[in-house]
């Protein structure tokens, strides 16, 4: 109880409250603009938070992260264009509503399902993270090394149909993480005599280049298609009460999203797709899924909004990201010198508890903003793609140059922008690269510690019970995935879990 009260005290800090409101509103807006989104915005805003207190900076970026999940429903409904891949099902299910002149009803169904999913997941975060962190206090280097490895493997496995490409991207990220001076003997690795590389590849230019600038290049070179907005028909508040007619679907989807969020590598897209299929089978109204069923929107929105807060559970407690964007959030934590894991709860309880409360209140801020500003946000969703590209590229300067005032950082960002552009064009996933860069040093450091303690004996990973269980689970997962891959050889690649 004292722990939670400590967090409430943080809300008395005006900058934290302002960051929460601004971040949430910005998140909704960028989530509604196809091509903008949380990854682009977080990467651009990241360097501007360096001068803020960690809680203020993190609240701002988490606001963008959570708000974007709500905002993506707006273009999905208004212009039948998902703001992000996780809004595809909403777009599919909402179209018949729009055709019937019930766009407002679809909107309010989406908002209220998102709200319930988001709040339920934050409550799960508040209740489950501390116990999990307490369990992790018993972990040694071998267990943490296996957890880091698990995060990498699970994210690769989550990229169904693109696992080979995801593995390559992750390995590339791991390689990038090794560039610079290594810690054991202070020798240089792959610097080729460049002093600017001695400190390694800087994370901020890499993130901005790979996620923001490459997106700007895609938008600048895209063919623009003007889409007329739909008229907002129906009653706005109708769907708010309506969701509670489908309690099982609503709370079942939220809980399913939480479980998927906790499991590293699953992510919103996969969670949503699996839950949609199950809900269609189990619902008495299953035959109407895809034809404008209220439950279809509820499943889609409740699931995708419950994943992000739940994905913070393993990240805060264990230091491993639960889904795609959490890998970026892990980078944000590390840039702010906040190292997630069990020690965080001992050393900075006020920070963690403050984060809980801001995440909870954020949902109320977002829903309030959506009620008054949906029409205006819908117009933002129609923003010209090329102008969006101009805006993103211009904003990228703040991050690439103004964070360190080094031209070498700009060069690095430009290289990664080009790489990101080419990879996006070929649907290669980008997030595993970031995950490799972030998790690489953790994996290498923990492996060295574990093996050093065992004098190089590799059996250390199977003689410690928790580590042994992790190794077995990982081996089983890899074997099953490999079998699936062998079966798919010769077939066409299927869908992938994200756009990045």
């Amino acid at each position, binding site marked *: 109880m004292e722990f939670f009260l400590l967090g409430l005290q943080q809300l008395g800090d005006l900058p934290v409250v302002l960051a929460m409101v601004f971040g949430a509103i910005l998140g909704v807006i960028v989530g509604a603009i196809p091509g903008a989104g949380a990854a682009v915005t977080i990467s651009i805003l990241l360097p501007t938070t360096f001068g803020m207190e960690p809680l203020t900076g993190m609240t701002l970026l988490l606001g963008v992260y959570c708000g974007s999940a709500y905002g993506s429903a707006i273009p999905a409904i208004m212009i039948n264009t998902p703001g992000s891949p996780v809004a595809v099902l909403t777009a599919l299910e909402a179209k018949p509503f729009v055709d019937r002149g019930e766009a407002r009803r679809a909107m309010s169904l989406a908002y209220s399902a998102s709200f319930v999913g988001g709040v339920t997941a934050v409550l799960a975060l508040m209740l489950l993270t501390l116990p999990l962190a307490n369990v992790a206090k018993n972990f040694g280097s071998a267990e943490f090394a296996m957890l880091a490895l698990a995060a990498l493997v699970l994210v690769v496995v989550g990229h169904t149909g693109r696992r080979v490409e995801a593995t390559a991207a992750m390995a590339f990220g791991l390689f990038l993480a090794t560039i610079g001076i290594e810690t054991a003997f202070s020798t240089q690795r792959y610097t080729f005599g460049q002093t600017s590389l001695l400190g390694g590849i800087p994370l901020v230019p890499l993130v901005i280049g790979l996620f923001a600038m490459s997106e700007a290049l895609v938008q600048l070179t895209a063919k623009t298609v003007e889409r007329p907005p739909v008229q907002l028909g129906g009653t706005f508040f109708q769907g708010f009460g309506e969701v509670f007619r489908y309690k099982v679907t609503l709370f079942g989807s939220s809980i399913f999203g939480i479980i998927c969020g906790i499991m590293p590598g699953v992510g919103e897209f996969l969670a949503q797709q699996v839950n949609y299929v199950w809900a269609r089978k189990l619902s008495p109204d299953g035959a109407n899924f895809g034809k404008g069923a209220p439950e279809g929107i509820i499943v889609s929105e409740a699931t995708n909004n419950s994943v992000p807060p739940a994905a913070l559970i393993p990240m805060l407690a264990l230091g491993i990201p639960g889904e795609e964007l959490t890998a970026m959030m892990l980078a944000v934590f590390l840039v702010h010198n906040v190292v997630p894991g069990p020690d965080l709860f001992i050393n900075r309880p006020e920070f963690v508890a403050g984060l809980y409360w801001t995440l909870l209140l954020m949902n109320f801020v977002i829903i309030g903003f959506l009620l008054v500003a949906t029409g205006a946000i819908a117009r933002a969703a129609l923003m010209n793609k090329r102008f969006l590209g101009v805006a993103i590229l211009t904003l990228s300067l703040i991050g690439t140059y103004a964070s360190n005032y080094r031209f070498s950082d700009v060069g690095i960002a430009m290289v990664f922008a080009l790489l990101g552009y080419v990879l996006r064009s*070929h649907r290669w996933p980008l997030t595993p690269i970031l995950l490799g860069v972030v998790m690489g040093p953790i994996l290498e450091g923990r492996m060295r510690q574990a093996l050093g303690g065992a004098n190089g004996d590799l059996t250390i990973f199977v003689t410690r019970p928790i580590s042994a269980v992790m190794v077995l689970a990982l081996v089983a997962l890899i074997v099953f995935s490999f079998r699936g891959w062998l079966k798919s050889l010769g077939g066409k690649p299927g869908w992938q879990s994200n756009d990045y």
Partner: protein
Amino acid sequence: MSEKKETGANRLEAMALTVIFFLCSATLLGLIGTATRTNARGGWWTQPWLMPSLALGVLVLTNAITLWREVADIRKHPPSQDEKQAARSAILSWLLPLEFLTYFGAYVWATQHTGYAVGTLLFVLFLSWRAGLREKRWFLAGLGLVLFMVLVFRVGLGVWMPAPDYYDLFPKEIRTMLMRWF
């Protein structure tokens, strides 16, 4: 990005990309002996080459698998002349982002000589024009964007940017104001 790329990349273009990735990763792996060191003291697990060689080994292997799949597919379904032509165009289109990146590099350089606000204004207006946004409304939208950026980043968040030399020509009070806000 063209409509074609959104639905599925050209097979030959994709293979060209994989060949580049494979050659780069294999070259980096080949350089492991010169780009890292082996230390006589310490166990094998502490050697600086261990992690890069593991990462690059996986990268080479996955690129080889991708290449093998692509070659097998092309041998099974040989590309038509149209597809070959489309691949050439697609590969050339890789140069298009380079043009925009060059403008970005010039923008970064220009801000040091013109100041952030002026440099950003020039960049936004030029890039909008180059991207085909040449109507009056886009000019006004560009002005709005620059105003927003200056207000948020320079005035609001106080992000520091180097002052250009010509600011010294102004009286002290104006110079201070320019350095702080523009």
